[in-house]
C-alpha cells in the first residue's frame, strides 16, 4: 500500500506530468474540467462544521434535485462519466446532511415560549 502511494506520488512529480501541466495543449482544458464540479461538494463538506444559520434551504433543496438528475445523466451519457457520478453522489450526500442540519436547527430545537409575568400578589410564599 505504501509503495503504491509512493509510486503514485513519484508519477505526479515526474517530468511528463510537469510538461503536461505547463503545456498549452488544447485538450488539457477538457481533462482539467472534469474536476470543475468538485467545488460544490467540497464547499458543502467544509460548511458542515459552521453555523447552521448560513444554510440556505432553497439552494440546498435545488442542489439535491440537481445532483439526483446529474447522477443519472453521468451514467447515461456515452462514454459513461463515472467521475461526474462520484462528484454528484458526494454532493447529494453533503446537501442532504446540510438539509438535515438546517431542519434540525429550525424545527428541532424548541423555541422558548413567551413567559407570562405572574402577578406578585398571586404568588404563594411558603
Amino acid at each position, binding site marked *: 500500500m505504501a509503495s503504491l502511494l509512493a509510486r503514485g506520488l513519484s508519477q505526479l512529480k515526474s517530468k511528463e506530468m510537469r510538461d503536461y501541466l505547463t503545456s498549452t495543449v488544447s485538450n488539457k482544458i477538457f481533462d482539467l474540467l472534469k474536476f470543475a*464540479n468538485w467545488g*460544490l461538494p467540497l464547499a458543502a463538506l467544509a460548511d458542515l462544521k459552521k453555523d447552521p444559520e448560513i444554510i440556505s434551504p432553497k439552494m440546498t433543496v435545488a442542489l439535491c434535485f440537481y445532483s439526483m438528475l446529474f447522477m443519472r445523466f453521468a451514467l447515461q451519457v456515452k462514454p459513461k462519466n463515472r467521475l461526474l457520478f462520484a462528484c454528484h453522489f458526494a454532493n447529494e450526500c453533503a446537501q442532504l446532511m446540510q438539509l438535515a442540519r438546517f431542519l434540525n436547527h429550525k424545527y428541532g430545537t424548541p423555541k422558548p415560549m413567551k413567559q407570562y409575568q405572574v402577578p406578585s400578589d398571586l404568588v404563594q410564599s411558603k
Partner: protein
Amino acid sequence: MFILSDLYRVSIGVGNRVLTPRMKQIVKWDHPAGMKYIHFWAPLMKWSLVGAGFGDMLRPANKLSLNQSISLFATGATWSRYSMVIVPKNYMLFAVNIFLAFVGGQQVARIAHYRYTHLETPNEKEKQI
C-alpha cells in the same frame, strides 16, 4: 420519490399517444436529447440553481455561505467557457452557466461588502471564519 418517476412515465406515455406526428416533429419529441430523456432534463435543472440563487437575494448577507458562493461562481465560469469550446456548441448550457456565474459572483460581492463594513468586534470575526 417513486411517485414522481411514475408521474413522469405516465406523462411521457400520454404524450406518445396524444401528440400527432406533426406536433412531435415540431417539439422534437423523438430526438435523442429530447424531452423523453435525461439529456434534456438534467441541464434544465441547472436553472433551478439560478432561481434559488435569485431567491437568496432577500437573505441578509451574513446568512450566506462564502464557500458555496465561490464554488457556484467557479463552476459557472468554467462551464460557460467549456460549453463554447465543445462540438456542438451548447448555447443553453452557456446561458445557464453565465447566469450561475453572475449569481455566484453577486453573492460573493454581497458577502465581501458585508464583511468589509461590519468587521467590528473580535467575537464577530470568530463567527465569520
